[in-house]
């Protein structure tokens, strides 16, 4: 697993405004987030590169994911 683009010396794609979103049954579906200003839906898949980077940012305290509304 590629842990973080921080291995590129802080080369970081901008991830902002993260919020979990749910399926109609209330279970978690993914993360709604802006990636370099583009609003996108990121799955909770450990093989998804955006998800890997988002979790790395969260673990580093650089990003907070808001709960689903």
């Amino acid at each position, binding site marked *: *697993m*590629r*842990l973080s*683009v921080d*291995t*590129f*010396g*802080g*080369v*970081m*794609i901008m991830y902002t405004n993260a919020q979990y*979103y749910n*399926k*109609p049954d209330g279970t978690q*579906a*993914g993360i*709604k987030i802006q*990636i*370099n*200003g*583009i*609003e*996108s*839906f*990121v*799955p909770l*898949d450990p*093989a*998804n*590169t*955006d998800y890997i980077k988002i979790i790395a940012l969260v673990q580093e305290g650089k990003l907070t994911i808001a709960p689903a509304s």
Partner: protein
Amino acid sequence: MSFAVNGTTGITFNDNTNMATAASLGPRNRIINGNMAIDQRNAGAAINSAATGSFPVDRFVYYTTQTGKFNLQQNAGSVTPPAGFTNYLGCTSTSSYSSLSSDVFVLDQKIEGYNVADLNWGTANAKTVTLSFWVYSSLTGTFGGSFQNSVQNRAYSFSYTISSANTWTYITITIAGDTSGTWITNNGVGIIINWDLGCGSTYRGAAGSWSGSNYLGATGAVSVVGTSGATFYITGVQLEVGSVATPYQFNTYSDQLAQCQRYFSKSYDLGSATGSITGAGVFGFRGIQTVYNEFPVSAPIAMRATPTLTFYSPNSGASGKYYNYSASADVAASSDFLSQNTFTFSSGTGVTANQLCGFQWTLSAEL
């Protein structure tokens, strides 16, 4: 066509094409879109003042610590490509920038582990590989790049020489496979190949050997970012097993597009950039009920991993939106389900029965 068989060099055809290994006779190029023909995101348009993570053509990505130092574009500068090619990837420096030691300016392709699993890197049986490509620059001198593993704690810096400015030069680089480190062989990052456009000293190491460092290029290499207007064009990129560079392996356009779509796909017609204002390729629908209209959309082929999904309004190009033609309004789109093969679109509350709506989408499962 006649040919010669030699126990050491393999088969040589009378056009001097040499096939040194049995693997050379089958599909051999581990690089996808090495002839830069597919550009789904930009449809040939320039990425000016490129930010990190930009894809100027499919499968090739640009990373930087300094936004705005390069313009990137398929066929930038409109020079004649090498014989047999019709496209190339062009990088143009926008200023004369002196890189800090920690700066990164790099073009790379990440090869999926499945596609290099047979190389046995990280074992005593690691295979030798040869990288070949055509390169053209307004600068001359020694340029650099590197091979890396997924976590960037193994690197092999390489260098190559461009002797004549503004002339296509064919480069071949043969390296022994890495017998150490961890090299992924699944759908993660197998091998990263970097072309250094002016990285700082932290990310450059001595060329010609494996190290346990995060090197993106070679010490002392030309810094393209250091000269305003300097150009760096590349095409015909091929990575193959063995110590001989064979001629570039062309695929049919449809096969190559499908290879790229494993990592990125879109609803837009191929001639339309993502986020553009166009109805070409739009997914149109009529609301069948008030509040909640949902339906599935299939990806062109199974993607590498569950992809990141983005909706775009065909009317404004705004992300996260669909367009309600009947109400003349962009409306927030959502999705309840994503997989490697399909996703759902959900209209939310922005549509009532029989209203005409539409959206564009992209899926990204890049490495």
